[in-house]
């Protein structure tokens, strides 16, 4: 399942090529279904989520910019977002972004957008620099779509401690990736 081949199929899907869509589905659906099953932990729901995922892929294929993202990562992000949205709708969790925190403000540093480039360090190496339980929390949050509350229960720490763990871990990872 070469990236190049998936990119080419996405290009054809953007041109409404049904054969390419079927071919893309054949090649990528086991991975994307695996994502939905792992996050939703329910086959029926995962099947519905997978439908949503491919409907989105059909309509959004033209937004895939080869070279800017790896095609499999792009597809996996659509699947993860769909599964996590479905999970959060089924089982709401507390809001974590502080109300007083103004999300509408533009970011301060306009140079930052120029910094998107493939980072030299792999996330795995940076995760190893974190304490083992924190790295595990980051990994499980990502893979299973766990909420802060669920993570706090699994790791037997107070909710606020878990929030601090993950937020500090994210900053450490960011710093490590940029090093």
């Amino acid at each position, binding site marked *: 399942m070469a990236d190049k081949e998936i990119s*080419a199929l996405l290009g054809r899907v953007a041109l409404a090529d049904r054969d390419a869509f079927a071919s893309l589905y054949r090649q990528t659906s086991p991975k994307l279904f695996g994502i939905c099953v792992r996050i939703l932990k329910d086959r029926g729901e995962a099947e519905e989520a997978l439908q949503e995922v491919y409907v989105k892929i059909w309509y959004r294929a033209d937004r895939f910019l080869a070279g800017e993202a790896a095609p499999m990562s792009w597809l996996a992000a659509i699947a993860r977002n769909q599964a*996590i949205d479905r999970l959060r709708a089924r089982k709401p969790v507390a809001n974590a972004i502080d109300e007083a925190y103004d999300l509408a403000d*533009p970011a301060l540093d306009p140079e930052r957008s120029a910094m998107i480039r493939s980072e030299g360090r792999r*996330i*795995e190496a940076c995760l190893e620099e974190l304490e083992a339980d924190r790295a595990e929390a980051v990994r499980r949050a990502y893979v299973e779509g766990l909420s802060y509350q669920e993570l706090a229960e699994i790791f037997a720490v107070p909710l606020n401690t878990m929030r601090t763990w993950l937020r500090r871990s994210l900053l450490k990872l960011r710093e490590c990736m940029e090093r």
Partner: protein
Amino acid sequence: MTTQKPESGDSRSDEVIAGEYVLGVLSAEDRRQVEARMATDRNFAAMVVRWQSNLASIDLAYEPVAPPPHVFAAIESRVFESPASTGRSASLWNSLSFWRSLAFASLAAVAVLGISMLELFSAGQGGKPLVAELQGQGNGLGLALVAQFDTGSGRLRVTPVAARQTEEKSLELWLIKGSDPAISLGVLPQSGEGEILVRPAVRSKITEGSTLAVSLEPLGGSPTGSATGPVIALGTTRR
């Protein structure tokens, strides 16, 4: 964040929120808030994209699971049985006046407009040319084209209304007929405007209701014979 009370716009907090979004720990409401901000704040959206690409290698943890066959049938019926969404309802006359208002921006464009309108009217005797407006698909590449196909001479003229394509890329024009693979009509001149002489074998295939699309390709056009780059404009022909 509740614990640190950072000043708004603090890029460290932004990084954390972008990372929390990609990890998936946020609530539904927070996720919508993040997505709304991504749509209006390019720098913030870039942070999210970067986290996505940074964390993507963890995707290896997902074991593939074959979905049951009925899922694809359901997807196909949802995607292919809905009415085509590419048709545009604006009339040709509207599109020309829209085009003309933009063309005033440049003398050269006005000249092109003059030629195109002349052709349009003279073609009236031998049958109206097919015209398609091709609009960008909301991908920020900002391109709109007016395509005219003269059935008699086989000349397809494509004029950009606004183009911001990168120089080392080529724009390739495609014909889409139903579910058939897209047929390349040729690569547009690097100047971004001009005519393509459509191969005689393909001419009869450009009919009313055909879809024309432009994709961004490596210099010289797609190396594979099918589109490899993003589709930056798409439109349907009509009389």
